[in-house]
């Protein structure tokens, strides 16, 4: 068994209703790395993360976490095996306070206590608004909370979906620093439309186009491969 990879997704096929959304996606995530999923709007990036999480379970293909298969497991079992999920659009619980948003992510009673130093160091704002409802936070603070929530338990892997979406440049810089810091502790699979952010953060990339993974490799090489970027991402 190859333990240098935390996550291995092998040609998965996912349906939503009768629609065939993923038609063969393969992603491998090396331990300790940040891997980014790139691709146009509607390519299937979010669906790939949701398939890994078991929220839209694939009908074909295999997914393994540290060699253990995730296929057929309920999402909560997958989470308990050490997968943290930061969904798109900052899906925090708006009626719950910051503290409650973090408490709910605990898997054992002292998780939050153990991690609070790290969390407050990365995101000092959260300490300031600890007892305020999540819905009262700014967009950037909500995104910080969503990431902090995934940091509360011990996770092997974080799935982070478009963290920079709709944030001001200053906040994005803060976010980049934070994601770098936390990647020292945990492996990250990131979806990021902002190519600059992706190139600053990621070690490796996988390009998804129309439900299929079409290219992958080192981020440092992709930056120079203008033909590939043009073809699938449409940015120069």
């Amino acid at each position, binding site marked *: 068994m190859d333990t240098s990879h935390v996550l291995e997704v092998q040609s998965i096929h996912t349906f939503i209703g009768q629609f065939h959304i993923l038609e063969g996606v393969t992603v491998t995530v090396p331990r300790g790395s940040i891997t980014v999923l790139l691709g146009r709007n509607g390519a299937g990036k979010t669906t790939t993360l949701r398939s890994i999480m078991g929220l839209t379970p694939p009908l074909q293909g295999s997914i393994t976490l540290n060699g253990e298969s995730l296929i057929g497991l309920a999402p909560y079992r997958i989470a308990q095996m050490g997968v943290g999920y930061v969904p798109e659009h900052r899906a925090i619980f708006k009626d*719950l306070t910051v503290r409650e948003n973090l408490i709910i992510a605990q898997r054992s009673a002292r998780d939050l206590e153990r991690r609070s130093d790290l969390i407050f160091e990365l995101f000092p704002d959260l300490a300031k608004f600890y007892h305020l409802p999540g819905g009262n936070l700014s967009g950037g603070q909500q995104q910080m909370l969503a990431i902090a929530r995934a940091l509360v338990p011990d996770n092997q892997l974080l799935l982070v979906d478009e963290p920079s979406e709709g944030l001001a440049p200053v906040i994005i810089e803060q976010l980049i620093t934070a994601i770098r810091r936390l990647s020292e502790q945990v492996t990250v699979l990131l979806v990021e439309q902002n190519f600059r952010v992706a190139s600053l953060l990621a070690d490796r990339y996988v390009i998804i186009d129309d439900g299929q993974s079409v290219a992958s490799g080192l981020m440092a090489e992709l930056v120079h491969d203008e033909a590939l970027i043009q073809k699938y991402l449409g940015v120069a």
Partner: protein
Amino acid sequence: MPQTRSTLMIVMALTLALLLFSFFTSRGDLGSFGTTILSGLFLGMLYFLVAAGLSIIFGLMDILNFAQGAYFMTGAYITFALFHLPAFQGVDANLRFPSAVAAATAVGALLGLLLERGLLRPLYARPIFQLVLTFGVAIIFGEALKAIWGTAAFSWSPINSFGIHQSGFEIFGRQFGTYRLFVIAVGLVLIVLIGLLLQRTRTGIIIRAGVEDSEMVQALGINVRAVFTMVFTLGCAVAAFGGAIAAPFLGANLGMGNAFLLPAIAVVVLGGLGSYMGTAIGSLLVGLAVAVVAKFSTEFLNQTVWSSITPMLLLILILLLRPSGLFGKESR
């Protein structure tokens, strides 16, 4: 929070309007005014016991449980039957009643567990059928009660009954049963207890989070289906408990299911689907409104029909005027 403040203003205005209306139509008879308000609180507490489960279950699982009234009715029948069972007549009445209530609540919980696990769980992919099924189950409960106990209504006579059921007290010259006051107190305690459970415990946090986004709760490593089952079971148990403690005053009859389901739905819509505070406040408002209108229509219109259709009229009015409820966010 300006939205909450304006909502509270509306609530206070409505309450005040109801109180004033009742006060002036009782033409200076303070006793009549007082008993009307107490009757309203009594009804409101019973509505709350049905509506609490209805609202939380709807918020969390997206199922409006049309069988909730049937659980209330079943609770009343079981309590009535056990209390009057000849075999138990040797037991002291003051012990017989709480035991009957406990048994009825337990049966309600069990039937709730069976409904969620056995019938609703296979249908989460087909929500329309879930709705239809709860409606069907309500009918089945009614028919089963009819098959066991017949169609005649039972009324609970205070003679040969238990302690507080026999006593009453006087407000401004009018009699009011101590037992109904006891029910009001029990209701208040439960409102606070369930509120604390939701606010202070981890389970409560999970439930409130699930009302917002149950998929995300699941993705945090929590077995949401198990939480669904627990909440559904508790919701049905509380409704059955409501019927059980209502029985000494209301007896047991086959019309009870709808007579409490519809006002409870009115409460839930008024309070805002899924909002606990809305449910608690809405219960008292609807209870007061029903009692005030009932008294007015029997005294001034000489027609009891208005009092029996008040809950429906209220529900229709709420749906017409404010379908998103007082504390609700969305109704689409």
